[in-house]
């Protein structure tokens, strides 16, 4: 399976998709620049929604020895998805030959069911949880970049790292380059072991996080955007960030139920309606 993907006759057609802000365009740009540097013909075209923040962000990437006639394509050799909503954006580019790469800790089964009959080759990597545990969720996209390199035999990991450090040379956060490199290495190594497991998460709409005799505190992981307003404004400082992640890949709040007075301020001020506090009599 790996070798088939490597020996695609008319070059590699790669489609990368995620939420705006997850780093889809950065990894596509780095791959395209590196491929150009080593003398390949390459084309990279970003596509995102009209005049609007958020929403699905898609990158069309092609690498070939022959001339590339048109920057778009109808079917991709590799499809990489980083979020639930981006599955809708890539559905039409899948066929039986496509390698489908996704993060099992981030994608819901509900969304995977839409494409279950259309894909046969699957690479399931655990990027987000590893990034949160070992580095930072900011470098999740670099794990995917490392995984992609396993399927682009002409591009060496060192070349990618050189292009990336040129790009980040003026970055204020010097640790970021080191974290990015570690994430790329991790992604490259785990992509060696393929698995055909198209199973994601079963997320519930509402999570019953904490309760005692007098009160229940519930949260909606599908709505929360980790804006931190509830944590900052809680009058008794009962809220803090947990290690669980929401649909954007950022941290969900959790409550210390012993401190909570069930005043309901967090429910009132949450801009997304992601918290529910119930007081029992």
């Amino acid at each position, binding site marked *: 399976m790996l070798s088939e993907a490597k020996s695609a006759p008319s070059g590699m057609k790669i489609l990368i998709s995620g939420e705006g802000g997850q780093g889809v365009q950065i990894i596509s740009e780095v791959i395209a620049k590196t491929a150009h540097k080593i003398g390949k013909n390459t084309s990279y075209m970003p596509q995102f929604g009209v005049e609007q923040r958020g*929403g699905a962000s898609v990158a069309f990437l092609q690498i070939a020895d022959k001339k590339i006639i048109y920057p778009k394509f109808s079917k991709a050799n590799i499809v990489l998805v980083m979020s639930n909503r981006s599955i809708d954006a890539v559905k039409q580019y899948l066929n039986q030959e496509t390698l489908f790469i996704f993060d099992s800790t981030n994608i819901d089964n509900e969304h995977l069911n839409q494409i279950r009959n259309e894909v046969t080759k699957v690479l399931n990597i655990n990027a987000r949880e590893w990034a949160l545990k070992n580095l930072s969720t900011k470098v999740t996209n670099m794990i995917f970049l490392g995984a992609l390199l396993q399927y682009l035999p002409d591009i060496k990991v060192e070349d990618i790292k050189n292009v990336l450090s040129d790009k980040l040379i003026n970055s204020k956060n010097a640790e970021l380059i080191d974290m990015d490199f570690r994430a790329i290495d991790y992604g490259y190594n785990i992509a060696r072991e393929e698995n055909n497991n198209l199973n994601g998460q079963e997320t519930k709409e509402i999570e019953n996080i904490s309760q005692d005799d007098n009160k229940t505190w519930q949260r909606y992981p599908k709505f929360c955007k980790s804006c931190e307003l509830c944590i900052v404004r809680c009058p008794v400082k009962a809220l803090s960030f947990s290690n669980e992640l929401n649909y954007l890949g950022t941290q969900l709040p959790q409550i210390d139920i012993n401190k909570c007075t069930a005043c309901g301020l967090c429910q009132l001020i949450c*801009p997304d*309606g992601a918290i529910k506090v119930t007081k029992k009599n």
Partner: protein
Amino acid sequence: MIPENNIPKSWKKEELPHKFCPGCGQSEALKILGYAIDELGIQNKTIYASDIGCSLLSWNMFDVDTIQTHHGRATPVAVGFKHAKPEAVVLAFMGDGGGYAIGAQHLINACMRDDKITIILINNANYAMTGGQMAPTTLLEQITATTPQGRKLADFGLPLHGPEMLSPIASDNAYIARSISNDFWGLLTTFKKAINNQIEGRGFSFVEVLSMCPVNWKTDAQESINFVEKMAEIYPVKEFKIPEGLKC
């Protein structure tokens, strides 16, 4: 008394999560507007007109009839709808760019004509959707994408105070107020008064809401709250005009 539902009944639950950025003050204000619509029981006769800018991201937020209009034209479209169907409750939702810059003439004329509509204007001190450029409401010395040295009095004049501008030309039937998105109960009462003024057929209603924009201000949650409180010192939060006999 905490509302029973964490999401207003007049919101479209299937469209959540909505499209606003994390920590956006507009989504807080729209949630409170949803509760105001719920409490007044006007969901089936409300017409919601939204402007261009971040305010258009609310086009699928409410389960009410919605009109999407052009830059600054939410006010005249809302006025036209009110003339055609006087029993409807018409809400025009816009940002400071739509209301105080490109659509300022419509706002002033609607106020002078005493049109019986409710205008809700979000003031976040910049043009948020296009990347945080200077708006009429940008504070002096505030750094934005187009004022990297800060807004200077000599070049751009003073920030625009909308309710203060409208109060002298408004009739005695107008309700004009400024509120803040962080204050749940205060803003809920203000919205209910502004909508009631229209339902009772009295006159023009205008609410300016001071709101947070953490993405373009480049602030975290605590700094955003501090910034919007600093705004409230410059833009006083109060009711400028209250018609006699208005129900709360």
